């Protein structure tokens, strides 16, 4: 239990605070409308359904404000950068932005349902009151005319029941009032957004998800307009018209001095107060993404590796990166609107940035095809620019930082890369290599806290990652020369082995280097035994804080998360494991 607190405590705290705010808003506004004196007459017509509609509305305001913030990735990168002083745990929360976005979305969906049902009841009861189906007081209240006949201002009207005639249906009223029409439109937009965001659709056809999600523009515009109809009405001449005395005397209203005709007015729209800030921030975010897109990107080198892996080395003015960050790439020739994320595999010490792109879908396939058909020695598609105009260019947005940036903050780091997830660690390892080369003193005496790095590379087969094996070979040699062989411990696991592999390995078992990768470190076959690995790390580092970084499948994340909790000690003098996960 204590280990869970260390690893998830701050997240749980933030969620509790968020939920508490939701509950507080719900209850506050519920009782405001259910107990307030100025709503006594309104409640006579609508009962508790008034409060049941207004309370979720308040929660909706709050959550619609929150929902835009976790998806402003440039803003989040900025905050992440400025939190360098405030500790790892704070920055870890920013990694969970999409989960929070989804949670807020669920709350919006739930509250929309409650709000809509309550308003269905409200409209029905208003309509029935208008037609005189209820008691005398209800009919009298509904019959109140608009005393400010010559005034065009909607809010200067004095009636209570927004349904002004006796011969319309609730459906007609909803579709002819601002609140009703916008309500239906934005609920429809919300439903389409939700159905296209289901995991099945998102994972298979990202485009459908992404384009339909842009209906949020319709949603927010409609949301701001939704409250401008002055439909929720309260009494404002309470001092002159005593409700307790006058409610039974509706036929005398306006005729006796104690009971002038009750006057009502609607409240102004309030939603825009809540959402204007985040909307502006989000507009900035999109503008920033567009500006970054228009900045010139030149190709330094294009390499086609075996197994359909494309390496692009790009140069962009003013581009500064940290280890393990990623960028979004856009190739207008393939698709004007698609931006795809790729982790950078170059180190910050280099004067270019590189990405390794593996064939994994129609966009990547087309990109590899384009690059393959370029003539040898061409300076990238830009050289053909005068023939093809603006089409041959690459847009780059980023860099955006995720968990790998923190790897040098921990005394000991365990890096686990599964399959294509090894790419952020390519950047980290290259950075280590440069740090060795650039300066003589070893890593331990620099500002960087890292003492030891354990690297676990798990993949089915190494074909697609020969470029990475080359990197490891170089590092291996470097570290041996400097006598720092124990700084980096790495283990490779081939999970796609068969009898042929095993035979081959057995025959060559006494060679110095591994037959598959050519590295000094022998390849292991099968999945790692995590208990053994964690035990080993704990034994070799009895007093350290260990950061565990994973880039790989969710199942592995669960396993590693559990192991981190299991092998952590609450005692701060002993080994503690913190788990960080990349998410794409």
């Amino acid at each position, binding site marked *: 239990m204590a280990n869970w607190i260390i690893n998830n405590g701050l997240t749980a705290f933030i969620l509790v605070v968020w939920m508490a705010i939701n509950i507080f808003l719900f209850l506050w506004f519920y009782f405001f409308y259910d107990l307030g004196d100025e709503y006594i007459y309104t409640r006579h017509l609508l009962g508790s359904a008034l409060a049941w509609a207004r309370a979720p509305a308040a929660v909706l305001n709050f959550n619609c404000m929150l929902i835009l913030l976790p998806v402003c990735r440039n803003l989040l990168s900025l905050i992440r950068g400025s939190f360098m002083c405030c500790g790892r745990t704070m920055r870890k929360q920013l990694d969970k932005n999409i989960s929070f976005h989804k949670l807020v979305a669920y709350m919006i969906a739930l509250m929309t349902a409650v709000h809509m049902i309550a308003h*269905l009841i409200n409209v029905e009861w208003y309509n029935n009151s208008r037609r005189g189906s209820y008691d005398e007081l209800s009919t009298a209240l509904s019959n109140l005319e608009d005393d400010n006949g010559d005034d065009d201002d909607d809010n200067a009207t004095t009636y209570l029941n927004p349904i002004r005639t006796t011969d319309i249906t609730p459906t007609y009223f909803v579709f002819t009032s601002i609140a009703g029409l916008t309500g239906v439109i934005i609920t*429809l937009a919300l*439903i389409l957004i939700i159905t296209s965001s289901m995991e099945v659709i998102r994972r298979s*056809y990202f485009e*459908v998800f992404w384009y339909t999600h842009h209906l949020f523009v319709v949603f927010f515009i409609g949301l701001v307009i939704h409250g401008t109809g002055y439909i929720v009405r309260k009494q404002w001449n309470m001092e002159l018209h005593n409700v307790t005395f006058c409610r039974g005397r509706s036929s005398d209203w306006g005729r006796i001095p104690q009971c002038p005709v009750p006057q009502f007015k609607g409240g102004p729209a309030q939603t825009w107060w809540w959402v204007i800030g985040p909307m502006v921030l989000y507009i900035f975010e999109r503008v920033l993404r567009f500006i970054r897109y228009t900045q010139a990107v030149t190709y330094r080198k294009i390499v086609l590796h075996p197994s359909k892996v494309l390496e692009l080395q790009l140069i962009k003015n003013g581009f500064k990166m940290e280890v393990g960050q990623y960028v979004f790439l856009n190739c207008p020739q393939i698709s004007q609107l698609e931006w795809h994320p790729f982790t950078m595999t170059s180190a910050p010490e280099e004067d270019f940035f590189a990405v390794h792109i593996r064939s994994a879908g129609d966009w990547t396939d087309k990109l590899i095809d384009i690059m393959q058909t370029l003539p040898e020695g061409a300076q990238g598609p830009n050289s053909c620019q005068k023939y093809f105009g603006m089409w041959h260019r690459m847009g780059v947005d980023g860099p955006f930082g995720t968990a790998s940036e923190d790897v040098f903050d921990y005394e000991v780091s365990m890096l686990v890369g599964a399959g294509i997830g090894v790419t952020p660690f390519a950047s980290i390892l290259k950075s280590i290599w440069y740090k060795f080369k650039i300066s003589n003193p070893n890593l331990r005496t620099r500002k960087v806290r890292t003492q030891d790095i354990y690297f676990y590379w798990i993949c089915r087969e190494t074909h697609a990652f020969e470029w990475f094996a080359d990197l490891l070979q170089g590092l291996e040699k470097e570290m041996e020369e400097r006598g720092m062989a124990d700084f980096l411990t790495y283990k490779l696991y081939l999970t796609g082995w068969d009898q042929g592999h095993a035979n081959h390995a057995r025959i060559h078992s006494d060679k110095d280097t591994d037959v598959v990768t050519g590295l000094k470190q022998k390849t292991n076959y099968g999945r790692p035994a995590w208990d053994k690995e964690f035990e080993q790390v704990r034994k070799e580092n009895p007093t350290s804080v260990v950061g565990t970084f994973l880039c790989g499948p969710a199942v592995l994340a669960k396993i590693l998360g559990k192991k981190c909790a299991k092998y952590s000690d609450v005692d701060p003098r002993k080994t503690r494991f913190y788990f960080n996960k990349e998410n794409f």
Partner: protein
Amino acid sequence: MGKIEWAMWANEQALASGLILLTGGIVGVAGQFRGWQFAAYAIAAGVFVCLLEYPRSKRAKGTSVERTGQYCFTVCVKSFGPLTRNYYVRAFLHAAICVPGGFMLATVLGCVCLGIASIIYLAAAIRGEHWEPIVPRKDTVRPPPADIKNPPQNPPPRPPPETRRKRVEDLEGAAYDNPIPVKD
């Protein structure tokens, strides 16, 4: 956007519409709204649409993810043969079902959502998609790979017994070379 199976999205949308119709119908009946008969119809229609749409179709390309416990529904839906297999039928069926929902406020949202699902199904049908049931895979026992040999019929070839007997006076000469180096 070449590889989209529109039916997958249509299915999600139709299932959601079924639930919305059902909810609207329940509110209409429970509140005894004017025109509650349409709400009662919406409850039945909503349940029907949910039952029809719950089992996911098998994808033409890629892995299909089943919904929990969908096998019983798959069997029911499969038994209607071409009526449920064909998406044109579904598109027109949903379009027809949704119309009565438009006559009452509580069910109008369900009506519009189901109408949209019907349009997406029409797009799917035009592209030639159809519903395939997901049947559980029967794990066939894989035959052992061809290189597993039968146990040998004959004993291994050995030198004659005289040579095999241990020659204690000449241990060096008695040993023979291993083809594969044996190390500790």
